[in-house]
């Protein structure tokens, strides 16, 4: 195959269509000759509606130069279906493109269409494994995570698909406890998607998740991801924040409590790590929320915390903390 389709006898029967026929476009892009050539022929193909093996090659050629060309993807998908190309083969072919262009929407959407059409739990399970390799390269890739969640929900096979997810998340948080995508995935698996096999006892699940979050907060008390998960867990289960007052309190003081002198280790309330930088802003915010929920005389304590956040500990959000004060006082 020569460099340009225009020089290739195989394409001699297709009439290429220039992008702008009668218009002198504003803000044009300076395409390479190869890209211009390929998209001219692609417009020609779209006009006749051709779906053929050479159209598969052409769309791949365009996608490699511009993976965001959604029309090329769309026509490729239609062609794959029309030619009854084995879908597993197409998925396989797209693995390398997916890993090369993993920040592109279309790459992942194409796989989703293929998996939907394949409708195979085995393929879905293999895809989850493939996504692990992708997330190894980019642990916070948005589309990959959202696609992983879709696979779990769409195929929804408890033992084959969902069973390994919590362990996988724990591995990822072991590597980087600040990976917010992994925290979100945990919420998706544990709370947002119904009840997993073995998770029927919701009180036990709540205890487990609170312990998990507390343990991770103890490691790195200024990690917002873990605090947001803790808050989400409480709100989702309608648990008052005050249930955690004993745990949170040591994180709100500037001196970490003395460790090791006491024989009694309170497993429910792990203390801040030795390296903790205290007070932790998220802990102060949390404590103020406890006081606000309590209301009455406690409102004053919340106001004190918000004032210290506004004027000293978190001055970037001064306006917000002052709003919280106004809001609490007007509701008091």
């Amino acid at each position, binding site marked *: 195959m020569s460099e340009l389709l225009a020089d290739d006898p195989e394409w001699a029967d297709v009439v290429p*269509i220039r*992008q*702008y026929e009668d*218009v*002198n*476009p*504003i*803000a044009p*892009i*300076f*395409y390479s000759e190869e*890209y211009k050539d390929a*998209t001219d022929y692609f417009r020609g193909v779209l006009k006749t509606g051709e779906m053929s093996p050479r159209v598969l090659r052409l769309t791949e050629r365009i996608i490699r130069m*511009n*993976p*965001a*060309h*959604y*029309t090329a993807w*769309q026509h490729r*998908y239609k062609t794959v279906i029309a030619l009854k190309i084995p879908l597993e083969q197409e998925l396989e072919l797209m693995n390398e493109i997916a890993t090369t262009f993993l920040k592109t*929407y279309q790459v992942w*959407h194409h796989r989703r269409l293929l998996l939907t059409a394949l409708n195979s739990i085995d393929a879905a399970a293999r895809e989850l494994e493939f996504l692990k390799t992708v997330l190894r390269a980019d642990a916070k890739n*948005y*589309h990959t995570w*959202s696609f992983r*969640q*879709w696979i779990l*929900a*769409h195929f929804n096979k408890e033992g084959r698909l969902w069973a390994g997810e919590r362990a996988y998340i724990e591995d990822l948080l072991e590597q*980087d*406890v600040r*990976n*917010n*995508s992994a*925290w*979100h995935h945990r919420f*998706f698996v544990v*709370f*947002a*998607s119904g009840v997993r096999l073995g998770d029927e006892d919701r009180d036990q699940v709540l205890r487990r998740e609170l312990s998990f979050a507390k343990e991770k907060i103890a*490691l*790195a008390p*200024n990690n*917002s991801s873990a605090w*947001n998960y803790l808050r*989400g*867990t409480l709100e*989702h289960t309608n648990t008052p924040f005050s249930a955690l007052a004993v745990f949170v309190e040591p994180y709100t003081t500037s001196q970490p409590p003395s460790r090791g002198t006491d024989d009694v280790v309170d497993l429910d309330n792990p203390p801040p*790590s*030795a*390296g*903790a*930088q205290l007070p932790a802003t998220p802990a102060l915010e949390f404590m103020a929320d406890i006081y606000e929920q309590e209301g009455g005389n406690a409102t004053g304590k919340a106001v004190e915390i918000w004032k210290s956040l506004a004027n*000293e500990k978190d001055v*970037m*959000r*001064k*306006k*917000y903390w002052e709003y919280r004060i106004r809001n609490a006082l007007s509701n008091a």
Partner: protein
Amino acid sequence: MVSQLDPTPTDGYGTSTSSLQRETEDIITRHIPTQGTAHAELQKKLHFEFLLRNLRQGFPERYTSQDASQPWLIYWTLHGFSILGVGLDDQTKKRTIETLLAMQHPDGGFAGGPGQAAHLLPTYAAVCSLAVVGRPGDGGGWDAIDRKKMYDFFMSLKQRDGSFLVSHHGEVDVRGIYCLLSVATLLNLLTPDLLAGVPEFLATCQTYEGGFCNASFPGWAFEADDPEAPSDSPRTYDPSAPRPPLGEAHGGYTFCATASWVLLQPYIKLYPSAAGDSGSSSTPAINTRALLRWCVQMQGLPIELGGFKGRTNKLVDGCYSWWVGGCVVLAETLLGVAGTHESVPEEHHEENDEDGQKAWDDADDSLFNRKALQEYILCAGQHPAGGLRDKPPKPADAYHTLYCTAGLSAAQHRVIPSEARAKAVISAWNASQAHAKDGTAYAPSSDAERERLDELRKRIFAHAMSWSEEEGTAVYVGGAANRVNATHPLFNLTVTHSDGILSYFYGQTPPSRYANKPATK
């Protein structure tokens, strides 16, 4: 006392997130001017030249990645000019209109380029670009928008859960919903059929963090989530089934979902019974307090110059100045914090003292740090050779140039809904004109339904037209020479451009924003 430029605490427990964060803080710190930010200058001329080069000479080859986003390249450039206060000559307008119309799809909507498939995102960018350069009449572009076909295109993308595909065979994504709702609002294409289920869908996209994700999973609550399933099949809905968010809270999606939510307020109030086809009468709701909290938590520390992040534990990026910084006022509006006020004429500029810092604290009800955000954009967001960027040392590009300048605008100007303005618009409302200009050929089932739709149109129009700058609240870091134009918080157009296209497509002649203003000074 926390010192001014303390790094993000790592608690002696470093991970890849914290080391990347630390590297970024080191780079940004080096961009803090030693003499302070009081004299930081917006390099308007360099940015103007950057935009002009792209528009006139075109985009270099690396922009091939944007070949399916050509209306966006145009929109980012044109609206960038508008924010910088630059007008365009008639010849440039004419060429731009012709270029945009070459991307209108024969079956409705706009495509990423000529010959490509229609798609919701370029449809928004093309219509907003036409709001900037177009006008009614021959060659003006506005009458060449095939609104009937565009509406049919929208309806062909509608899913059973209330969402929309971004294109045929495409994905569901709240960016698409925002683009559709913005365009349908601007072009008078809103109908109860189009909007059914949209609020419920959006509400399911809010995550436990308070921000929004890109889509939720419909399959358990609706019969299927097959994107190719016919949209006209009846919605069977199991309200007890979960509709989990796919993906974590994210700045871009949060803006799109929130702006959509604000645009839908008149619909949610007028059509409460539309919620849930199977008799569930609960009005869809979002957690607005959690939304506000999430937005303000995205603002970086002083060591990050108060730029915004797009997700928890990710890095600041200039584009989130708009997507998240610009979202704060929308959250305030939903909370009722943004009160009524007298609008300020555009010509009226604040009197600043020499430092341009007069009355920061008393004038300003915003719940994010407007001054810090301006500092990030001025000190870290500007590329020395022109154009704006994610963060140093990255190159400038068309996308970041717009969303940094729009974010700067949102930090300088507080634009909120004005009840007085809404009343003035409603007092001049012409219902029969608005009805006659409806672009959809939608036929209400009864006279009562027709009246309800007329009322919806009126409220949507009045709300969209009511956003105005709050008097006496503009703030300019680096002095008034850095002033850029205000931009509409919902559409990201200047109010001059949004007023113009709205008035035309609703057949209204609202009273001038600046007439009858009592002389106060």
